[in-house]
């Protein structure tokens, strides 16, 4: 009914009200303008900052740091600013990794010139370098600055023969164990896979398990586990149809299903749940990134509580069939191809990765990339894992995770298949074939 009425009187309504409607639309635009101006007025500082691009401002993007730590970060950025008479504007990177990737991808794929230096991880660097969004740095960063960093960490920043990133943070998977629990059983830290199994069997009792494995699919954590064990078997995670990969994957499976030294819920375990299990003594050993458990080390300040007042220690990785290497990760500075201030950005990177800056940022808990800074007693006091990282570095144990433009996809492919294998859904051969087929496809795309 209403529709019929409308049709009958359309022309009258139309001719009489269109002018008024346009007038009203004008008022609407005015209201929109007012609405736009209101938040702008309330954030005048932001507007000024936006207008100051390319006017003595260097735009850098870095991890979000809590307010308590921001002062130290500012001191590094402002220190550089004072030296060169400019302002360093610090933008926040999202905390969650997928959001970080989405944001940086949106910025760089848009050719955004409002970003000069970007703090990036080892996964995104080759991807963005391949896309042509990053500036090669080997000719703008002094050789001695690069030489001060572990060659393996530099390897993780180099792609297709070009250095695209100067690391300012370097970490590695360290072999953590609950010293109190091992002491109670009269055990020392295992030195080989065999000793790991033996110790695990002794430690597995009363709801406690010998070792933790992050077996959850889709988190990159299972990929790290696979890369860690395959490395010790002498293989490479991009090549699964090898004896080394079969040995490593079988070993992971056996720790869960045959030796039963890893919890049965391993296929759903992640870093967060395993951290709590380790803290509560429900797992006794766990090779994981240094940062994850550093809060429990005896020299951590403030130290997080360990159930029953137990103690945490770090040992060298138990040796696999071939070696006792471990995987390394790193974050560092890159320069956007679209930066209008590349020269200054390079100077900034040199400053932000200097020993002084790294020692300052270490107070925020950032493990330095420079080998010499890792041995600084003040740094070791501030970053509990620094002294272990220094020892690992000295023994050349850490090596970078695979560098491909699509490492995240490789990780997803491996995790999906290995998780099914750990869940007894498919056999080892099926898992290897499935994952390798996907890896090959991804590599061809890359």
């Amino acid at each position: 009914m209403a529709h019929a009425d409308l049709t009958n009187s359309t022309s009258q309504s139309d001719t009489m009200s269109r002018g008024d409607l346009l007038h009203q639309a004008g008022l609407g635009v005015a209201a929109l303008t007012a609405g736009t101006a209101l938040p702008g007025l309330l954030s005048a500082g932001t507007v000024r900052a936006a207008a100051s691009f390319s006017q003595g401002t260097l735009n850098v993007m870095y991890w979000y740091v809590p307010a308590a730590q921001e002062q130290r970060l500012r001191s590094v950025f402002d220190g550089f600013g004072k030296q060169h008479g400019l302002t360093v504007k610090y933008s926040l990177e999202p905390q969650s990794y997928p959001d970080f990737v989405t944001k940086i991808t949106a910025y760089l794929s848009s050719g955004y010139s409002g970003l000069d230096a970007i703090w990036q991880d080892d996964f995104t660097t080759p991807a963005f370098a391949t896309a042509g969004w990053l500036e090669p740095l080997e000719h703008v960063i002094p050789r001695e600055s690069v030489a001060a960093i572990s060659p393996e960490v530099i390897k993780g920043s180099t792609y297709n023969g070009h250095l695209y990133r100067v690391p300012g943070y370097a970490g590695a998977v360290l072999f953590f164990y609950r010293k109190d629990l091992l002491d109670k059983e009269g055990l020392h830290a295992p030195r080989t896979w065999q000793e790991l199994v033996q110790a695990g069997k002794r430690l597995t009792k009363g709801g406690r398990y010998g070792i933790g494995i992050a077996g959850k699919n889709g988190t990159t954590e299972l990929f790290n586990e696979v890369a860690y064990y395959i490395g010790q078997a002498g293989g490479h995670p991009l090549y699964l149809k090898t004896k080394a990969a079969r040995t490593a994957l079988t070993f992971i499976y056996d720790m869960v299903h045959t030796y039963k030294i890893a919890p049965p819920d391993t296929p759903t375990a992640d870093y967060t749940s395993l951290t709590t299990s380790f803290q509560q003594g429900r797992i006794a050993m766990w090779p994981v990134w240094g940062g994850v458990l550093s809060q429990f080390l005896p020299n951590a300040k403030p130290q997080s509580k360990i159930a029953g007042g137990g103690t945490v220690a770090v040992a060298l990785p138990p040796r696999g069939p071939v070696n006792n290497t471990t995987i390394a990760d790193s974050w560092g500075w890159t320069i956007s191809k679209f930066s209008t201030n590349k020269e200054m950005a390079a100077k900034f990177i040199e400053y932000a990765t200097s020993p002084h800056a790294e020692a300052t940022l270490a107070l925020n808990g950032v493990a330095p990339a420079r080998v010499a800074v890792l041995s600084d007693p003040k740094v070791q006091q501030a970053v509990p894992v620094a002294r272990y990282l220094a020892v690992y570095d000295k023994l050349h144990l850490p090596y970078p995770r695979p560098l491909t433009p699509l490492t995240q996809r490789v990780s997803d492919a491996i995790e999906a298949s290995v998780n099914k294998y750990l869940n007894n859904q498919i056999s080892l051969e099926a898992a290897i074939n499935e994952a390798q087929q996907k890896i090959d496809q991804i590599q061809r795309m890359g």
Partner: protein
Amino acid sequence: VEITQVLPRTHRRLSARTLLRTLLFYVPIVLFLAVTFAPVYWIILSAFTPIDQLFHVPLSYIPQHPSLINFQTVTQVVPLAQQFLNSTILSVCSAAISVVLCLLAAYAFARLRFPGSQVIFLALLLSGFLPGVATIIPLFQIFQRFNLVDSLRGLFILYVGFLLPTSIWIMTSFIRQIPLELEEAAQVDGANFPTILWRVVIPVLRPALATLFLINLITAWDEFFLPVIFSRSSATATLTLGITQAAVNPQYQSVAWGNEAAMGLVVIVPVFALAMIFQKQIVEGLMAGALKG
């Protein structure tokens, strides 16, 4: 004797049937409520439980030692006041302006016949269904050109732009349900367009406008993806960004669930309170749209 023997049996049969019917009615409701409220309860539980007790085995469904430690941590980690102010400004301004604009646009679509009106209406509607990620790069390029990245005014324009298509669609259907005779009677009395709009249309639409304002306010308050991309500093960060800032530290690669839950509550409580206070108006507004015709 026969009667006394039969009656109890029928009664028993009826009782069983009634019981079965009652069970069939209530069991899905209870299950639905459990599924709906379990995550909310879990957030509350996690917010008031210190992280070292959160994953304690066996799980405790009632906080053994309730604590505000997660809230304290959140206030140290996240610039709450700034983010609260930003979220309030953005959601209130964008909800208000989107309602004003959608009213005018919807009136035009509902009452005026102009060439291509149906196509424009359809295009507008379809633009609302575009996935955000598909539009983000061109939008970013435009905003970069106009220096609108990392500014509240930029976010405001984005919020209004994303709220408008659906709002116009809803409002058009509301306006189409207003009897045209009301406006014609006003015209006969000599009222011009602004008077008709102000004195006739808006009073009839008031419940719908209030409802739409609240829905848009809540949508803008909960928006996460746009600030993730277009906000670069604390000065423009919203509370939804604060949830992730409270939860994750990239160096530690583990999630601080307690902090995340506490920050989640900080975000939920104001909109929950608003929804509770204006519950009657929201339902009335929605029912008005459903019943008129």
